[in-house]
């Protein structure tokens, strides 16, 4: 009685728990059907890559702007004046600052004006978001160098209007500080006067919805010698802005994809839950977590973004982040719990509290990132110019959050790897004992092993795909030319990977749902085991009572997994 060594009576409860999950569709399906399902899923996968690669344009566009230098002649006291860089009522402008010096114009009278977008174009709600990056062109002058730790103080105003002749409406007004991080690569000699410093990109502005057609930015760099404001920042020659927004075409393809995916995941989710509720026993933890994964996937999928086309919902960006965060946290928890429930070490689990050590870091890490996101994007709802990275305290705080989240992620992966290792150790242990087991037990363990290995393989494949594609998009220039077609690699990455995780969740819910076939044909087989040892009788009775005849069905008919 080898089995007794592995399954002493004291651990009977654990045994029954593990058996509850037994009898998923994946085990009961024939290899042929499994292959068919796999091929269909692969086709959808290829399709989702192609949608992004061939139909959609690149995900984002960067537009360059060079600020026009306007002259505020009288230093207007009225706050409402807006300076237009071009168009019918453009400001009086100067080409460069030599001209300003000649005309005795002071720094305080200069307004940098940028109109977004460029002439003869309109912004569109399809752009979803717009973030603007600031870069100073600072010329090196031997006698007027940038001081260490120099800080630029900007008085920035943002306005919008929806028709070309209309009045500008102020959206935001703020005094912003940005630390200049510039270095001069060549030697600091008088011959190199006039060369530009190489300055880091500065985060400038981020708006979560682009619901207006025209935007106008007015930037001042006020000088105050007494308060040391904007002193020692070198000789600014130009202000360059780069605005980044999502391409309308990509948004449309993305929405279409979400709209298509939502019902498919929703339907399979309802079907899955029906299956669960049809059973006589209450759902086990693993079934619940798969269902939760389905819910979080649907939560991401639901295309609420459609509303952002019609309404000015700036919080959509933040909301999207939160939804993604919830999904990632769910996926990570699922992997841990799946491993735990397939550990086969005769410990009673089936409760979330058992996994606190592993799930804790996930929750804590996600919480850290959530706080960080609220500090950045949350505040940006109020002040689009806000950046947590602009101040020293903010930078430290943000770094702290990110580092803690990083540590949590490391901890999680250590736990996960350890658990996977444990499972494999137990599997090999079980393998050697398999021939000596009774048929019911053997099939049960074989089922467990097969289920685990299958998910392990699929997950690894998905993760590998994600990582590989991610690297390709980082390294590549954005698009490939393939014959007559232009393949947008990064768009393909986004739609493909998004489709892939949807298919992953879909397949999970479909294949790991309790099998249908058990109803009715099991009862007769119970008798087969009557002559076995007491322990085995004990095992089968629990199955019959709690989970119906799933196991028995397997005994009678299922060989697919071999």
């Amino acid at each position, binding site marked *: 009685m080898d089995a007794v060594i592995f399954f002493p009576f004291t651990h009977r409860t654990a045994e029954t728990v593990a058996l509850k999950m037994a009898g998923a569709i994946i085990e009961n399906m024939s290899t042929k059907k499994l292959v068919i399902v796999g091929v269909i899923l692969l086709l959808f996968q290829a399709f989702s890559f192609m949608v992004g690669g061939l139909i959609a344009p690149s995900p984002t566009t960067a537009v360059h702007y060079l600020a026009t230098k306007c002259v505020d002649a009288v230093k207007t006291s009225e706050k409402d004046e807006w300076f237009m860089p071009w168009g019918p009522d453009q400001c009086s402008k100067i080409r460069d600052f030599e001209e300003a010096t000649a005309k005795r114009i002071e*720094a305080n009278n200069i307004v940098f004006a940028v109109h977004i977008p460029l002439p003869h174009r*309109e912004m569109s709600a399809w752009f979803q978001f717009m973030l603007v990056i600031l870069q100073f062109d600072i010329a090196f002058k031997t006698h007027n160098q940038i001081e260490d730790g120099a800080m630029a103080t900007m008085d920035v105003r943002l306005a919008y209007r929806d028709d070309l002749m209309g009045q500008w409406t102020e959206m935001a007004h703020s005094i912003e500080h940005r630390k200049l991080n510039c270095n001069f690569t060549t*030697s600091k000699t008088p011959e190199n006067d006039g060369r530009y410093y190489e300055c880091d990109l500065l985060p400038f502005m981020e708006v979560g919805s682009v619901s207006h057609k025209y935007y106008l930015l007015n930037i001042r760099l006020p000088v105050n010698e007494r308060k040391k404001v904007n002193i020692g920042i070198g000789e600014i020659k130009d202000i360059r802005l780069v605005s980044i927004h999502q391409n309308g075409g990509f948004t449309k393809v993305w929405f279409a994809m979400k709209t298509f995916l939502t019902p498919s995941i929703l339907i399979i989710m309802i079907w899955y839950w029906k299956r669960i509720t049809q059973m006589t026993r209450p759902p086990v933890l693993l079934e619940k977590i798969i269902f939760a994964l389905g819910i979080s996937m649907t939560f991401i999928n639901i295309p609420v973004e459609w509303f952002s086309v019609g309404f000015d919902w700036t919080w959509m960006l933040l909301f999207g982040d939160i939804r993604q965060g919830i999904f990632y946290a769910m996926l990570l928890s699922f992997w841990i719990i799946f491993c735990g429930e397939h550990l086969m070490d005769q410990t009673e689990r089936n409760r979330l509290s058992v996994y606190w050590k592993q799930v804790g870091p996930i929750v804590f890490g996600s919480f850290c990132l959530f706080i960080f996101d609220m500090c950045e994007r949350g505040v940006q709802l109020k002040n689009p110019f806000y950046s947590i990275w602009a101040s020293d305290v903010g930078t430290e705080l943000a770094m702290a959050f990110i580092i803690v989240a990083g540590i949590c992620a490391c901890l999680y992966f250590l736990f996960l790897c350890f658990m996977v290792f444990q499972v494999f150790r137990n599997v090999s242990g079980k393998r050697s004992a398999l021939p000596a087991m009774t048929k019911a037990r053997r099939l049960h363990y074989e089922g467990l092993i097969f289920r685990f290995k299958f998910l392990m393989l699929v997950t690894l494949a998905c993760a590998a795909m994600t990582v590989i594609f991610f690297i390709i998009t980082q390294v590549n220039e954005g698009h490939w030319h393939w014959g007559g077609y232009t393949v947008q690699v990064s768009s393909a990455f986004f739609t493909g990977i998004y489709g892939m995780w949807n298919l992953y969740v879909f397949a999970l819910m479909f294949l790991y749902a309790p099998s249908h076939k058990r109803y009715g044909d099991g009862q007769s087989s119970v008798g087969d085991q009557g002559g076995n040892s007491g322990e085995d009788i004990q095992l089968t009775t629990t199955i019959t009572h709690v989970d119906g005849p799933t196991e028995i069905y397997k005994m009678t008919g299922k060989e697919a997994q071999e």
Partner: protein
Amino acid sequence: MSDKPDLTEIASFDKTKLKKTETKEKNPLPTKETIEQERKGDATPSVNNFLMTGPKAYLTYTSSVQSGAQSGIEECKHQFAWDRWNCPESALQLSTHNGLRSATKETAFVHAISAAGVMYTLTKNCSMGDFDNCGCDDSKIGKMGGRDWVWGGCSDNVDFGERIGKQFVDALENAHDSRAAVNLHNNEAGRLAVKATLKRTCKCHGVSGSCSIQTCWMQLADFRDIGNYLKIKYDQAQKLEMDKIRMRAGNSADNRGAIADTLSNVARTELIYMANSPDYCMKNLSLGLHGTEGRECLQSMKNLSQWEKRSCRRLCHECGLKVEERKIETVSSCNCKFHWCCTVKCETCTQTVKKYFCAKRNKSRRPHNHSRRRQHKRNR
């Protein structure tokens, strides 16, 4: 713009080429004919006077093109500050219209840097909103700007600068001879220098600012970098052996094809020239050369590069001139308090600086030969 080298097009540069791109524009670009008309009666057209007389409709571009060409020449002056040839104003005349100028290495550089300057400035001013249709290349897509801008954004401003710059600068070459082809090639090399020095910058903006979404763009480099790049190309410039071309092409009709054939063997980024440079030591007003007499050079200063350290030897000694030290009192500003713009509060300081100039030697015949020999060596 197309990436394939299309040299047959350069060789057979004609009016139809220009016409194609100007159809949809609000401010139509000049056709070859209008340019031709404007130029008539102008014996020595330079970039400036060509542009000043341009039709009013496309004045929007002219100031950019003008200042672009100017910045090119300024950069040229900087790059050649300590060379025997120091990029004199006469080099501004870009066209081959003036039969006096030959296609030397220096001309090649002037062509390249001017074309680069024009493209650079057009690109820059495009980002300032100076032009109506910049970036959104309607001519290529064939649809109205609106939809494509929303769908997938517009092409880069650099492409716009390249396209318009090409139309303006290349239009100055109205001849179909080998020299025009060489000039066009060098113009192209200048524009490619702008593209080669573009810097790729990326910004991550995914969930919580992670790099799951990243947007990259190409950014214009400092114009000095373009100058440095082209200076290197100048040092490596390749000479076209015209005799070989003529030998291959028996008659004049085949000549053009032969040039195109020869040019296609040269990388598009390389500068090419046909004639050896004259002796820049000597004053030769008929060639527009001023000689090195009276030029300043650098000596005994800190932080000089090898090239600058030898400037006195190169400019004076090797040209048979002596170095003259002059003490010059300069009034300069010092102890300044700067604002980031416009306001400078300074004290004035008087300084005596030593400067070095090339001056005629009192008794010299021998060094002249010496310089000849050097010159010869250099050109080899």
